[in-house]
């Protein structure tokens, strides 16, 4: 019975941190704040699903949470590539002395 209370408290903390992350995503002055907010929100989702599984007595949800962790980074990588190269289809740098394109300045 006591472990149920621990799960409930953990769930409340996760929900609270979801709310805090959302505040950062809403207000975040720079775009990198928002990228970080989305990435950490994905992590919160993984934790949420894992704790929800134990809370409802279905620990098999743990596998689903792991799958979420695997797909979590795709969006973040796409956004960062867009900022670095200005183009999603860019092949990346081929040699070290090739200069970066000029549009890599930090967006506001």
């Amino acid at each position: 019975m006591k472990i149920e209370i621990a799960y409930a408290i953990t769930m409340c903390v996760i929900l609270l941190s979801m709310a805090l992350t959302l505040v950062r995503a809403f207000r975040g002055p720079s775009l990198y704040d928002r990228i970080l907010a989305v990435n950490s929100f994905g992590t919160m989702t993984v934790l949420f699903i894992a704790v929800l599984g134990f809370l409802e007595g279905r620990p098999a949800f743990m596998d689903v949470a792991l799958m979420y962790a695997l797909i979590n980074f795709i969006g973040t990588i796409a956004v960062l590539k867009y900022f670095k190269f200005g183009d999603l289809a860019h092949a990346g740098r081929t040699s070290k002395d090739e200069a970066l394109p000029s549009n890599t300045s930090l967006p506001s």
Partner: protein
Amino acid sequence: MIVFIDIVLLTLLVATAISLVRLRNLIATIMLAGIFSLLSACLFMTMDAVDVAFTEAAVGAGLTTVLMLGALVLIGREEKVPGKGSALPLVVVLITGFVLIYGTMDMPYFGSPDAPIHQHLVDRYVEKSGGPDGEVGPPNVVTSVLASYRGYDTMGEVAVIFTAAVSVMLLLGVGFATKREDAS
């Protein structure tokens, strides 16, 4: 506890939606749309719809972000500030929302045992599908439903997925790379 989690998640969802409408920076909008999808996935998880939740997270937060960014490369980063429009769109949205909610009035409550799906066929699937004397055989009910009771549906799905895979391979040019090197 589940009710409390649902209330918190729905509140966050509404806050995200309002912020999504008010933002003018398109990259921030894409980021918030990803968060919206993740929140929806959490809500689906609390309703035990694990597969729906996973599709929502993979497509909504993963693929759509990439597609939207691809569109952003073409159209620029800032949304035009619209002039003062008429109230017509708001009225249309409100009427549509009302009609949709009115349409759910006839549906049974979530998880209700009186729902048609719990009275119609499920008992037969659970009781008669498995076992050596069963109608299908495998111990797993879901396997029986997918492979036998709904076999034609599954065959159609497999055909669709196969066609999609072949199309993607043709678009990406898998298998043509070596020929091109020979030609050059």
